[in-house]
């Protein structure tokens, strides 16, 4: 799909930020796309399968990612690992309980529970970026 909204302003919270969306449900992916686009982000995806998501995850221009944990019968774990390798911050947008093994495997990772208000999601992605920037700055400083 990859259709960017015409409304773009530098004042938007996610202005120009490339965000990967991995979500197997068409409608939720559509809505996420809309929310992030509304916030000024450039959406990559939404990807509905692990295979396609892994391809997209290799995009080094990505700033962040929103991952659904379960994709059909698969889990998003390989994508999460790939992103972590690329030091791309991500958050889980999921309806899974806390006992879910993937959630347990990434205890540090930010979780946004389904369904969420658009503002919450936007803020969560923004905080990811902020954290990433801090770490990046720290890296640069060192």
């Amino acid at each position, binding site marked *: *799909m*990859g259709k960017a909204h015409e409304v773009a302003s530098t004042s938007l919270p996610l202005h120009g930020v490339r965000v990967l969306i991995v979500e*197997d*449900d*068409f*409608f*939720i992916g*559509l*809505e996420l796309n*809309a929310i992030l686009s509304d916030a000024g982000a450039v959406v990559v995806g939404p*990807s*509905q*399968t*692990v*295979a*396609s998501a892994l*391809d997209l995850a290799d995009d080094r221009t990505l700033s962040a990612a929103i991952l659904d944990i*379960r994709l*059909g*019968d698969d889990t998003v774990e390989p994508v999460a690992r790939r992103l972590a390798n690329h030091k791309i911050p991500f958050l889980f947008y*999921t*309806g*899974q*309980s806390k*006992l*879910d093994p993937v959630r347990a495997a990434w205890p540090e990772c930010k979780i946004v*529970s*389904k*369904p969420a208000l658009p503002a919450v999601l936007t803020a969560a992605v923004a905080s990811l970026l902020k954290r990433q920037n801090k770490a990046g700055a720290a890296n640069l400083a060192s």
Partner: protein
Amino acid sequence: MQVTRANEIKDYYDFLRENAEESQALLGDLLISVTTFFRDSDVFEALSRSVIPGLFKDKEANEPIRVWICGCATGEEAYSIAILLLEEAARHDIRPQIQIFGSDLDSRALAIAREGRFPAAIEGDVGEERLRRFFVKEGDHYRIRQEVRDIVLFSVHDVLKDPPFSHLDVISCRNVLIYLDRDLQEQVCATFHYALNPAGFLLLGSSETADHPSGLFRTVDRAVRLYQSTTQAGEKARLVPRLLGSVRVQEQAPHFTRGPGHTAAVGEATLHRRALEKMAPPSVLVDETHRILHLSDNAGRYLLPPGGPLSTPIRKFGDILLRPTRRSEWSSIHSSAPSNLRNAVLSGDVADLARPELKFELRSSLHRVFEQNQSTLSLPILVQFNGHAHRVHLLVRPASEDTSPRHALVMFVEGEAVDEALLSDSRPVTDETVRRLSQELEMTQSRLRTVREDSDAANEELRAANEELQSINEEYRSTAEELETSKEELQSINEELQTVNTELKFKLEAISRTNSDLQNLMAATDIGTLFLDTGLRIKRFTDRVTELFSIKPSDEGRPIADFTHQLEYSELIKDARSVLSELAPIRREIRSRSDRWFEVRLRPYRTVDDRIDGVVVTFIDVTERRKMEEELRQEKRLVDLSREPIFVWDFDGGILEWNRGSEELYGYSRQEALGKKKDRLLGTTVSGSSFEGLKAALLEQGNWAGELQQTTKDGRHLTVESRIELVQMDDRRLVFESTRDITERKQWDERQRLLLGELAHRVKNTLAVIQAIARQTLRSSESNEDFIEQFDGRLAALSRAHSLLVESEWSGASLAALAKQELEPYVPGRPERLHIEGPQIILRPDLATPVGLVLHELATNSTKYGSLSRPAGTVSLSWTLSVGNNPQVLSVVWEERGGPTVKNPKRSGFGSTLIEGSIPGAKVQREFRSKGLFCKIDLPLTRPVDDGKSS
């Protein structure tokens, strides 16, 4: 000899002389104490036939019958004869006093004889009749009855040395003489002859005789060696023979010189001495006591042994006999040959032996020699030799100059024969006075001779009396000894009685204590006990018995069969009899009329000496026990019936109990489980702990409850809820465990938890989908009404798809059903406007929902703009399944007819996005044809291999 290492008899003899102990030992060896009752039965038959009746016949009532058993050893023979005598006495009216002397050298044998206790083996020697009459059985011994014992005296006596018993009727000396040499045998025979009453009997052993010295005994029965004294009643003047004992003191006297005849050497000096001896006057050497020490060859001529009864020659010679050591000497004396006299070693008062004419002169001369040490030559003495008178001078002088030992030599100097007549004639009495004096002298001399003869006779008699007294003394001594022995016996019996008495006292105390114990036991015991005798009469019973039998203490001795009882036990008497006959205990459980139960035990009453003396019946109330047993049985049955596994195991060992519930749950049968270690059999693990930890907790708290993992016989893993209790029973620790299988519940719980998680997830997801649909709908709505209408429609479509999935438990939805549900609401009452056709296809849940939504969008659009907006418009929905492709592809075709001409919409709204993109992996092709909309959706049915270009 070997013991004393003596090589020759002589050495041993010397050793014996010096060593008193050895001589005692030798004596002990030589004394042979072999004897039995009635040894040689024919001897005793002869005795009882030819001797004993005579004894009784001749006796006066107060005259005792006296018998001497010489060498009686352990007394059997003495008792045998005593028995014979007593038997004979029983046949006579008068019962003379019977006295039997048993003598032996061996004091040990006599001790046995005195005790009169003989082993049972004598049964063979003594007839049954006599055994009963004269013996008392004491265990395995027989004791001679007191009646017999009283008439027998035993004493230590040496027939060779000690004076004999006297006035005997019978002497039995069997198998004693064979151990003596001939000389001693003759001495003993003489002794016996002396000891016997006139015509008394002597019994000897089978190889012994009383023929020597001859004339003392005559043979009565040679076969049994029975002899009778030749002395007739009324004969007197018997002399006791010399005994070895009386001369012992002289044994050490110096040996006498032997006659020259024994000297082989013949020198001139000897020749001279012989000539002298032959020529010299006959002489006699005497010692201080006037005993003849030696006679010259021809001195016998002047000796004339005094006269006496011819039947007692030995006594006469015995009187002068010192040592009859050799047979030759004995015979020489016996033959009285003067030529042989010199060879005899003689002793005796020479004055007694000398011819009467010489006696007086000889005695006075000897006296003078020894008193005054003066030689004397007597005046001629007329001595009659063979009717001729000879003048004989006696020359008596000391034999040597030495003062001690003093011997005197008596020489007889004989003149020519003198004619007596000539003598008297040639010497006529010249003087009357002398004649008268001479006559007077002769008278006096003859009176003197008479007096002397009288004196001699009196002397002889006195001696005999003395000897007799000595015998009597001996007898008294024996009696005293016997009395002493009896006294000792009495003392020891007394001692024994005292011991027995003390023992009895102790026993009595013990018995009374036992009795009081028994009384207390009977009173205290709660068990009914009934003692019956062999006739089943009541002997004793405890109080509890009275509750069952109507008996009182006064009923003791009455038969138990006479009493009624409370038991349903009619065989009581029969059982009791059977116990008495079979001696096997009987045990029964019997109910009483009051509905109580008793265990009745009957067992034989055994006395301490193992005799059966009745029956002991015990009644034990077992009502409680039976009740408990019954309860226990019920409980066991319950446990067994229970479906719950219940089992018991030893804390330190294996499984002890295993009910049916356990068998069912774990698959192990009772036999398989018993004895096995519980944790190993069931592979028990404890979640969060260990089996050892469980055991430790058990020890600490006594019980434990919780979940355990266990494995069944067929390998299933179970989770059980277990309750365990540790119970200390005596020295064992038993563990009671009951478990409940909660495996399924556990699995359910888990499934439920998963389901709940899934539900939460799905609800959240669905909410997120609805949220997205709402927002997307809102974005493309022109008004609120428009939003509500579109959103309601989409929500309803979503709901219908979910309904179908729920019906199939979320396994999938039939495409036909889905299409009908989604589309029919748009053609209310006119189903013919819809044409649905295709093979049966079940859509996966993740496909069913979007497909439903897409069909809803198509139908909505058609109602607004397409064929369904016209009354005659129709919709056809058909699908096919591609064949051979992998994955299979479902092709769904939507075709509208009879509607207005449709155009491609200017703006692509949410509806279009939904139709084209919402079905994952599907390819959607839409054509706005003049006849109406044509839409084809190609859908891979298995999850497509994602090529990464899904968009």
